[in-house]
């Protein structure tokens, strides 16, 4: 079965931005293609066009020399184009089999036979009759893949598939994808992780600002060359100075941190103990949903727990709320920058006023001191190179990177002794990621401490002095970052143990 997919001069224009500018690409079965680009490069738009979610303004798609019209996701399915999205479309409370049978026209018995064949063929180990909520992210993704395989796809599009997987699960996924490819399924793999492109894919198309800037064989590429093509500039490699913290003062000591939640969707935290020295960065790795969000909220004071001791600069702060903790020079950058760290409907200067201190004088005698807040905001915008100087702009009009710079800037401009951040560069482009990383390294060099909770291991290896892994609400032992490898982290993140 030979499949040939040709995209010819596809353009899609949104108000104020050209998402795809005459994109032409050719794909043939037997190979795995990477579609690489920063956020906003136009990858997602192109994929949405291929899966029928978005209609292009111009251009055509040919499948085996036949001009196909993709007006809806149904059209994509009819043409045997399968798609696995980054966010799963599964009903958590239904069983695996029920999820598969929902959009299948086959009879249940017939479908079960087919699914069992697929499971056997690709060595997937999934119990078809347990609710999806009991599955790990990797297993859920397999269910999505099976859903595509049921339809005998000619083309399989994977959108950022490894963002929620462990190292082990990622390897399993790659094995399966290679198998599919051998069987003649054309695979298009969308990512911004350069390593994956090199280890998995045969050809790579790099997109930038809506255009395809390069198509090449991955054998001819290196991480640096691909990164340069992606951002169009030479990426300075950021290196952290190795520090010795033996003689540093201990700034934070957490003992006996336990958290039990009544909400089944929250994770209980079990006996966490750790400490942090002045100028040190502690990285906490783990796959999302292992207690990171609860840990962050306990550190920020959004959740107050009984019997936990949090000593910060020799003061017990475990019962203080976030505003009170800020008075003691702590700062927080939560994961959800769009609806928690900032309010999209508020203007930039109003979002700045969210981080309010007694000494900031934003609100004197209970009255808003707009002038003061605006001056302060202007300072943040220029010091942290946010791409606007208009403090009256509603923050919903800032791009992800600029919004995150604003938030980090807001938290750091008060020179806190400790910054706690959770996935600080989630979903940002390389330029913004580098900026944030440099900033975080800088504060350590100035003797300020940080805790980075992140699901991105590269980020942690780049920023941390010590690293540990959170798994099912428990913390692994804390390791020196220089002794940690991605493989070790992967084992711990999957619940394994290392010596």
């Amino acid at each position, binding site marked *: 079965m030979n499949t040939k997919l040709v995209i010819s001069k596809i353009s899609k224009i949104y108000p104020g931005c050209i998402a795809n500018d005459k994109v032409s690409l050719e794909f043939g079965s037997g190979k795995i293609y990477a579609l690489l680009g920063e956020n906003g490069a136009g990858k997602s738009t192109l994929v949405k066009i291929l899966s029928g979610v978005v209609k292009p303004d111009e251009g055509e798609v040919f499948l085996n020399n036949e001009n196909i019209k993709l007006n*809806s996701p*149904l059209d994509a*399915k009819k043409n045997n184009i399968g798609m696995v999205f980054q966010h799963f479309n599964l009903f958590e409370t239904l069983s695996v089999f029920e999820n598969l049978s929902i*959009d*299948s*026209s086959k009879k249940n018995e017939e479908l079960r036979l087919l699914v069992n064949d697929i499971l056997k063929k690709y060595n997937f180990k999934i119990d078809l009759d347990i609710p999806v909520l009991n599955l790990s992210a990797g297993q859920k993704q397999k269910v999505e893949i099976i859903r595509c395989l049921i339809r005998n796809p000619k083309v399989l599009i994977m959108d950022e598939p490894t963002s929620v997987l462990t190292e082990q699960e990622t390897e399993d996924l790659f094995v399966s994808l290679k198998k599919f490819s051998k069987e003649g399924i054309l695979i298009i793999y969308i990512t911004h992780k350069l390593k994956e492109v090199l280890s998995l894919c045969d050809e790579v198309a790099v997109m930038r600002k809506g255009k395809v800037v390069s198509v090449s064989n991955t054998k001819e590429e290196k991480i640096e060359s691909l990164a340069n093509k992606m951002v169009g500039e030479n990426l300075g490699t950021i290196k952290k100075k190795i520090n010795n913290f033996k003689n540093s003062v201990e700034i934070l000591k957490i003992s006996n941190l336990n958290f039990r939640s009544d909400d089944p969707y929250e994770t209980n935290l079990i006996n966490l103990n750790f400490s942090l020295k002045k100028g040190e960065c502690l990285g906490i790795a783990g796959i999302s949903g292992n207690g990171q969000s609860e840990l962050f909220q306990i550190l*920020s*004071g*959004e959740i107050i727990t009984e019997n936990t001791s949090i000593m910060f600069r020799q003061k017990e702060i475990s019962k203080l*709320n*976030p*505003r*009170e*903790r*800020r008075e003691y020079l702590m700062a*927080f950058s*939560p994961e*959800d920058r769009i*609806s*928690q*760290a*900032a*309010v999209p*409907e*508020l203007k930039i200067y*109003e979002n700045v*006023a*969210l*981080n*309010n201190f007694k000494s900031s004088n934003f*609100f004197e005698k*209970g*009255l*808003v001191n707009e002038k003061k807040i605006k001056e302060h905001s202007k300072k943040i915008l220029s010091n942290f190179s946010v791409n606007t100087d208009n403090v009256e702009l509603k923050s*919903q009009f800032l791009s992800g990177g600029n919004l995150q710079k604003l938030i980090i800037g807001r938290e750091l401009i008060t020179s806190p002794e400790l910054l706690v951040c959770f996935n600080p560069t989630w979903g940002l482009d390389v330029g913004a990621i580098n900026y944030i990383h440099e900033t975080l390294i800088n504060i350590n060099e100035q003797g300020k401490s940080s805790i980075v909770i992140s699901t991105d291991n590269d980020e942690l290896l780049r920023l941390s002095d010590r690293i540990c892994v959170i798994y099912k609400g428990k913390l692994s032992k804390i390791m020196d970052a220089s002794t940690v490898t991605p493989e070790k982290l992967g084992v711990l993140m999957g619940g394994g143990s290392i010596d």
Partner: protein
Amino acid sequence: MEGLLIKVEKRNDVSTSIYFLTPVLAIFLTLIGGAIIFYVLGFNPIEALKFFFVTPISDLYGLSELLVKATPLCLIAIGLSFCFKSNNWNIGAEGQLIFGGIVGGGVALLFYGHDGFYVLPIIILSGAIGGMIFAMIPAILKTYFNTNEILVSLMLVYVAKLLLDYLVVGPWSNPEGFNFPETRQFSESARMPILFDGLRIHAGIFITLATVFLSWLILYKTYLGFQIKVSGLSLKTAKYAGYKGKTMIIIVFIISGACAGLAGVGEITGPIGQLHRNISPDYGFTAIIVAFLGRLNPVGIIFASLVVALTYLGAETAQIFLQVPKYTGQVFQGMILFFLLGSDYLLFFKIKFLGLRKNEL
């Protein structure tokens, strides 16, 4: 199987001017809806609408009545805007109004026969405190026991009504009142000063205007107002910023209850002059419509209260001239809310028709 595919999408860019113009559109649509109803009932729609919306305010007395009705509506709606802006759904302003009336009325009866400039301020203050206390019940239950404030505040309306009923029939009923369910007429010192001879418009309007100004100040110029705004937009952010959520719930309920209590005491010391069973024609409920029609904005609420007050007056004239029940007024109030919510939905979401398509999967 065939089905009409409809997709609802959120709009990102809603302009401020259109946001404040949709209430005007809603009123316009209400007029059209009203015209159709009158036409179906066999009236000349233009004539009927004229009786409803023009005749009542074509003389000074009518204008004064308009302000008499708008005064409590505006006051309550202003109070409610504090609750609604911060995501607290106080539906029981009617109960807070009645309880404020009870407390204020009780104090007025206590001062029966007293003269002195201090009598009225004490009564007004006690009315406000009454409303406050009554509003604190749902607030405290919500903060400490996680109850739903919509249910609690609504149910408390009936508690207040029954309490008033008991008082005017029983212990507080007028000893010379031939067992009518009402109290004595308050002394002159306990009455709101009338502004013009022969008209009912009273000094309560100044309380309302002062409250509007004060609310604007609090909502837009103070830290408390900022916290209310943030909590209304995102509770997660309010928590992250470290705002004391519980304290704020209690504060907004207190403000809202105080306003409703003031409205109640303004009614009984103003146009009514005593306590009886029906001291409010559901002002507390209608004020919810006023608050939303005015976009929870102090100035907007002034205009909205005038419009909605007109439906009260219009219903009375329509009853006299067209012999339709006075509940027509509520029909109009309902239509205003209906059209407002409808146009808001279309303002914030767009609906796409994707045409007919076979559901073959």
